[in-house]
């Protein structure tokens, strides 16, 4: 059980039987008045956001969430399919649930899916993913000046800046948290 004073950004609570994440939070207390906990909450199933102000006497249940290891299979009409490698059970996430992770979802990637009861909510990626460059401008002479970069496109359609020596067909390691190039991978 949480108290209002436990509220902070990122806390996951259960309200009316649905999981919510606190996306913004501030403690306020107008002159000699009672403590108020102004929060912005996002429904982790529907994505709906709303503001709510809690008082010190308010309490809530933690959202009962579980992470499961799954494998990414494919995307079809905005639905992303993941499979449990042991039970072969398949679940789908919507485009908005997947969010920015779509940039790094390559076939058969092992990921973690967060569940509320039996509902899948979101995907967490490994920190580093190796991806193939599908489009790159050729390395022009004079581009070796340190600090210079060029844009390339990866197999998911994601574009990023890389050092000029990276060429089409090569594999690179990307940090999924920042979305940035890390290193060239030699097979």
């Amino acid at each position, binding site marked *: 059980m949480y108290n209002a004073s436990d509220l902070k950004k990122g806390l996951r609570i259960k309200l009316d039987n649905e999981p919510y994440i606190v996306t913004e939070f*501030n*403690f306020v*207390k*107008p002159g*000699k*008045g009672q403590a*108020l906990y*102004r929060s912005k909450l996002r429904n982790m199933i529907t994505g709906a956001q709303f503001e709510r102000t809690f008082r010190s006497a308010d309490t809530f249940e933690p959202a009962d969430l579980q992470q499961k290891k799954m494998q990414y299979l494919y995307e079809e009409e905005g639905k992303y399919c993941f499979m449990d490698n042991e039970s072969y059970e398949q679940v789908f996430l919507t485009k908005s649930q997947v969010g920015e992770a779509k940039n790094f979802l390559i076939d058969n990637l092992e990921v973690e899916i967060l569940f509320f009861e039996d509902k899948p909510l979101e995907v967490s990626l490994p920190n580093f993913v190796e991806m193939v460059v599908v489009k790159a401008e050729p390395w022009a002479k004079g581009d070796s000046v340190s600090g210079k970069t060029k844009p390339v496109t990866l197999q998911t359609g994601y574009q990023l800046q890389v050092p000029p020596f990276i060429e089409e067909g090569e594999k690179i390691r990307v940090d999924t948290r920042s979305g940035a190039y890390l290193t060239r991978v030699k097979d």
Partner: protein
Amino acid sequence: MIHGVEHISQESRTELLIEDDHDLLKQSNALWTRAKMLGAIRDFFVSRDYLEVETPNLIPAPIPEQHIDAISCGDWFLHTSPELYMKRLLAAGYPRIFQICKCFRKGERGSYHLPEFTMLEWYCLGMDYRLLMKECEELIIAIANDLGNKEAIHYQGKKIRLQRPWESISVSDTFTRYALVPMVEAVKENSFDEIMACHIESHLGLEQPTFIYDYPVSGSALAKAKKDEAAVAERFELYIGGKEIANACSELIDADEYHTRFKKVQEYRNSMGKAVYPIPRFFLQDNVDIPKSAGIALGIDRLAMIFCDSPIIDNVVTFTPEVM
């Protein structure tokens, strides 16, 4: 300053710092502004014949307030404000006193709250809350001038003009103007604080500093009730840039009334399952002779936020609880 630090080169001084504390130097401007503010405040009061006092931080019984929780320390408490002891000095015959001190309040941490913060309090014999508003204006203008803000303060993209008189509006009028709810109704429905915090405060003091006055007596433990309206206390707050900066009142002088209100606060806290503090008994004895007077508490960190143009309190103090 550590003795001899001025002889250490910048490089070796940096080496002395803990890795995580490099950011502290980014606060240098704010810390200088804050120090100048404190200097200006002392100059102001000394020039007006106020005596600077220090009362104990560790006390046997905090002021009974509905919504302020004290931090216990051994068998006693860290004070939540120096109010009680400053009033005892006032009652004993010190007519003009001020204090700059740390106050401690349990569980208060937000963008403009810290559990340990700095308060300026001053009390003046013979004043009422209206005269105190004037003195408050003079103080802020004196500080602003010392900091080089002659006509206005620039805060979070707003130009807050300092020309007097400042805006002054009753609390009741702020409710009808900004929240479209009558104040009495909000009090009845126990939504006064929420409406104030979520719908009114952000409008206050944006073009010039704003006083809001005459609060419901229910939330003003030590303020005198108005003669003609017993449900309203002679209390005001100063807002600058949407932030509550100071709280003031004409002091309650009736010992029996103090006793009644303290008892009420105890009952309320008990009903809410909050810690119930002992009643400050010496205070009630001395207070019998409190003459007509007014007092004000001003948050130094909040004022520093305004003068440093900072949206959060963290930038104007040396350390917050999270980095200790």
